[in-house]
């Protein structure tokens, strides 16, 4: 068991938590938390699985993840704007299907 294996396991657990949170979350902000956690899990996976933890540094996955972090923030910012707008228009920050599912 070395560092790479450890972080792959952590990534898998984080991804599972993210998927679970995405499904059970009612509030859209919680869904955003979940999506961001899933994204972070994949970022960890990319770097951990690239073999750069075992000595030979590999700049490619790190550069990819750096781009990914910025894209994730951009998408989150837009999603937050959509959520606030939805709340303004309907008074709810949940999706229609979710309310039906609760019945």
């Amino acid at each position: 068991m070395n560092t790479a294996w450890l972080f792959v396991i952590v990534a898998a657990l984080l991804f599972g938590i993210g998927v679970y949170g995405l499904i059970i979350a009612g509030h859209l902000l919680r869904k955003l938390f979940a999506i961001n956690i899933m994204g972070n899990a994949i970022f960890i996976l990319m770097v951990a699985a690239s073999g750069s933890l075992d000595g030979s540094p590999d700049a490619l996955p790190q550069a990819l993840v750096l781009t990914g972090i910025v894209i994730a923030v951009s998408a989150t910012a837009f999603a937050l704007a959509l959520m606030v707008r939805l709340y303004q228009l309907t008074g709810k920050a949940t999706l229609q299907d979710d309310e039906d599912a609760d019945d």
Partner: protein
Amino acid sequence: MNLAIDALIGLGLVILAWQTISGRSLFRGIVLFVVFGLTMALAWARMGAPDLALAEAAIGAGVTGALMLVAYRRLVQLHPEEPAQPNRRRSRLALPIAALAAGLVAVIGLGAVSAEREPGMAGLAVMSELADTGLGNPITGVLLKFRNLDTLLEVAVLLAAFLAARTVFADEEKSPTPPRGDLPLVGALLAIIIPLTILVAVHLLLAGSREPGGAFQAGAVLAACGVLLILSGRLQPATRMGLAVGLPLVLGLLVFSLVGLAALVMGAPLLALPGLWTVYLIETAMMISIALTLVLLFAGASGLRRGDS
């Protein structure tokens, strides 16, 4: 011993993620998410990726947390009586699906880790190539030399996200101005913090060619300056975007595109950067654009104007 530290950080990440998802209060969720981001930064540092640690701390935790807090405040302002109903969907399938997803990630990751690596992998080829370019930081080198189109479009995505967010609120009435910072210490504190923050941002930018750092980290740190100025009322959100805001907003895209096209005119491949000075030029322009975009996203406004202080 090292593995024990990594295991602690990993355990912390998992617990924080679970708390963020399952906690009752939305506000607590945001705070925990920011702590999760900072712990991610620690994990990146442990994984030997200081560039990612800086980016995660500044962008992943800082900017995302600030944006989430602003969105939360607007939700509370719209309906103060019930900001967050702790509703959860019940689903029998949630746990099996999550377990399957986690298993899939684990299989992919463990398969990739245990795979035999050929000595001529792309990363090593890039490292040997980068030695000639004068860029000591391989991440910056890869971003600007080999994935330059991706980096250009990344700035475009950030700009597109801002424009889309503004379009959503096109017919919104003017957002309420934040409370004026009348406390006697605010001015003195800003006078110290703002120059230091700018210094850190410029250092991150200049260091980015040799050491961990770069335009995105520097832009996020610079954006913190703008956020402080907005919170203290020195800068006010404005409904109209003047040239003074619009031009810096697209400066990164503009400079990067122009330099890239100039390379094409001079017979080099598109977006080939002729020298180190163009790297600094592009990174500086990108830093300004990124910082301004993030500040405007935080302000939820199309423009900025001076506060009347």
